């Protein structure tokens, strides 16, 4: 059980990282600033991708029945996520290496942008569905069909919320990345503020819909830790907005990261101990102990190798401010 909790925290952490990067990459809805965005994503975008793969493989190694049930019940939105990922990833690379004439460049950008909208929305649908208590697994068989959960208003609200959150975070990041170009920075500041402010009503709607759409989660949100977490999240959110407003962009970035972290941790706590509410929990969907132990050591060793390496990558590239030409 303890093992399972540790695993959950680890995969949740990776999830969080994956989310962060994804949203970073979903920036190109800001139409004019492509060069800056491309520059910001370029060196690290391969690594972003891998978070997702890591989450998936750890998921199916540690919780095979949970993985099987999720992928069967959410076949349709997951396929949508997948298509979004493929289009987004390849459009980004192709644009990088094929950025010679403007028409082609614009077409890739349009595809990249569209897929960047689509993917987090579909991911939000899936998360909403997992929380909805509508996916039923009885005697190891999925009994709720292929449309349970993700077609509900609550899941749609989750999708929109994910979209808004990612947009907000990406724009906030970019205000820091464009420090050397004040006019671009202003653009991103406006975008971050807009996204941040519009996030509030979406969050409220999601919360209200959760009462019927995700009763288990809603009930959890009234336990002792909930006000604390909601408080911290709100402080972070307001801090980020104030930071943006007063042009303390580094502060704003830190606060936005804190905000997203709190939201994900809160979601994790509210969902705990369930994997797929209400039938699959971390315990009953976990695999055999021998594999969990091996996986745990693998995760520890992997983390010991990866974090320094990732740190080095950042150190090398974020050490010096951008001085590369804006496009190929």
């Amino acid at each position: 059980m303890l093992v399972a909790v540790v695993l959950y925290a680890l995969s949740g952490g990776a999830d969080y990282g994956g989310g962060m990067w994804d949203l970073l990459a979903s920036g190109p809805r800001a139409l004019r600033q492509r060069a800056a965005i491309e520059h910001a994503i370029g060196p690290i975008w391969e690594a972003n991708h891998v978070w997702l793969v890591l989450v998936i493989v750890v998921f199916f190694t540690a919780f095979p029945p949970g993985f099987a049930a999720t992928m069967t019940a959410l076949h349709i939105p997951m396929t949508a996520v997948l298509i979004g990922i493929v289009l987004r990833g390849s459009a980004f690379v192709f644009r990088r290496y094929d950025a010679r004439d403007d028409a082609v460049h614009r077409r890739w950008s349009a595809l990249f942008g569209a897929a960047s909208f689509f993917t987090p929305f579909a991911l939000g649908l899936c998360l909403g569905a997992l929380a909805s208590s509508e996916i039923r697994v009885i005697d190891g068989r999925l009994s709720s069909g292929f449309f349970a959960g993700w077609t509900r208003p609550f899941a749609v609200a989750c999708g929109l919320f994910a979209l808004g959150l990612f947009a907000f975070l990406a724009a906030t990041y970019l205000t820091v990345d464009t420090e050397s170009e004040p006019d671009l920075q202003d653009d991103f500041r406006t975008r971050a503020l807009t996204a941040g402010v519009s996030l509030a009503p979406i969050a409220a709607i999601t919360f209200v819909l959760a009462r019927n759409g995700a009763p288990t989660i809603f009930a959890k949100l009234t336990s002792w830790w909930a006000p604390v977490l909601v408080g911290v999240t709100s402080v972070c959110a307001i801090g980020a907005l104030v930071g943006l407003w007063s042009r303390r962009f580094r502060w704003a970035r830190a606060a936005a990261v804190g905000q997203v972290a709190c939201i994900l941790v809160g979601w994790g706590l509210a969902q705990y101990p369930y994997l797929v509410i209400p039938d699959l929990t971390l315990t009953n969907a976990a695999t055999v102990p021998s594999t969990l132990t091996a996986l745990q050591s693998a995760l520890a060793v992997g983390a010991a190798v990866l974090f320094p390496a990732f740190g080095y990558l950042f150190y090398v590239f974020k050490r010096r401010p951008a001085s590369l030409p804006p496009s190929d």
Partner: protein
Amino acid sequence: MTDLDFARSQMALSLAFHIVFAAVGIGMPLLMAVAEALYLRSREPVYLDLARRWASGTAILFAVGAVSGTVLSFELGLLWPGFMQYAGGIIGLPFSLEGFAFFTEAIFLGIYLYGWDRIPAVLHWLAGIVVAASGVLSAVFVVMVNAWMNAPTGFEVVDGRLTNVDPIAAMLNPASPGQVIHMLLAAFAATGFVVAGVHAFFLLRDRASAFHRHALGIALGVGALATPLQIASGDVLARMVAQRQPAKLAAMEAHYHTRAAAPLTIGGIPDDAAMTTRYGLHIPWALSLLAWHDPSAPVRGLDSIPRDEWPNTRIVHWAFDLMVGAGVAMLAVAGWAGWLWRRWRRVPDERWLLRALVIVGPLGLVAIEAGWVVTEVGRQPWIIYGVMRTAESVTPMPGLAVPFTTFTAIYLFLSVVLVYLLRRQFIETDPRAVRRARGPLDVSRDD
């Protein structure tokens, strides 16, 4: 076609697409690390230019490989939830390890690509080595999973429940060493040959190009060394298959009747109903010799296997012959090149050899595709050999024709774009590279 057929087709298509990038993603970092090592030793700018160009190519291929790999990790669950539920706990571990190896590769490739003028030269080269090593490790882990599907070990089934699961024993199953080595050598041989073929093509157009001559030297060296080793490892693997998966071996060789001193059948049209292979070339004793290293040894035919456990004989047999044929052609060209190389003591650039290289260049990739068809189709109808049938593991989701069509369209589109892009990279490389190799090196701009 049934939903199962669509699911299998979609998986096959995704794997066939991914394997090209995976294989080249294993081979290219080696080539670029060799080029950079030669640069560090000789300080000849042409090697640096080469390492940079190859690194750009690697970046495109790696990116597509990463995307197509992500697709596969999703499809395992989307299409084969039964398999994942059963096997995830036993064989998920190497997948997770592969995730880490892949992550390491991505990080260090980032450092390599963007670090040319930001970190010390030796560190930069070491980053390249890490990319190459983690690429190899990824392949080791993934092939271990496939080997387990062929030779499932490391668990027991008691009353239909899994017990005594030992993920390490599952990883180190009997098929692992042979399959892993065969795949790694395949990646090196195929990458070496395909890159050699491309540079041979440009060398035929511009005989004076130092850039393409040096490139040809490195790529051909890797390809020509890997090919004979690969054929030897194939022999070891085939004997392993003969012992553990008689149905697969029988289908590979279109061998219907169990007998001693079995002949080898090359080509022909296997006919399951008549249990005979028409129009094939039959070489007496050769199959017994190859499978057991004894010309009189008995070899089990398909007649010893229940009819509903036969793989598709035609596909497996033809794919096997295609793979071996491609390997033999590569071996012949490798031998020719090696002979000239020794005699002349320089990179051989004989016109006919270059032409042969252009033709043989893609055969390594053809052999890889064919080889995967042999091992995958040859394992059917099982997804886990002798334990779980493919039909039992497919998703209950109806209408799989829709995702299949969608992904087929996407892959077609991606392939077209990719070929177009790579072609443009090479063509644009050509004159500029020659100029750069001669003139002062331009390090201010990199992709």
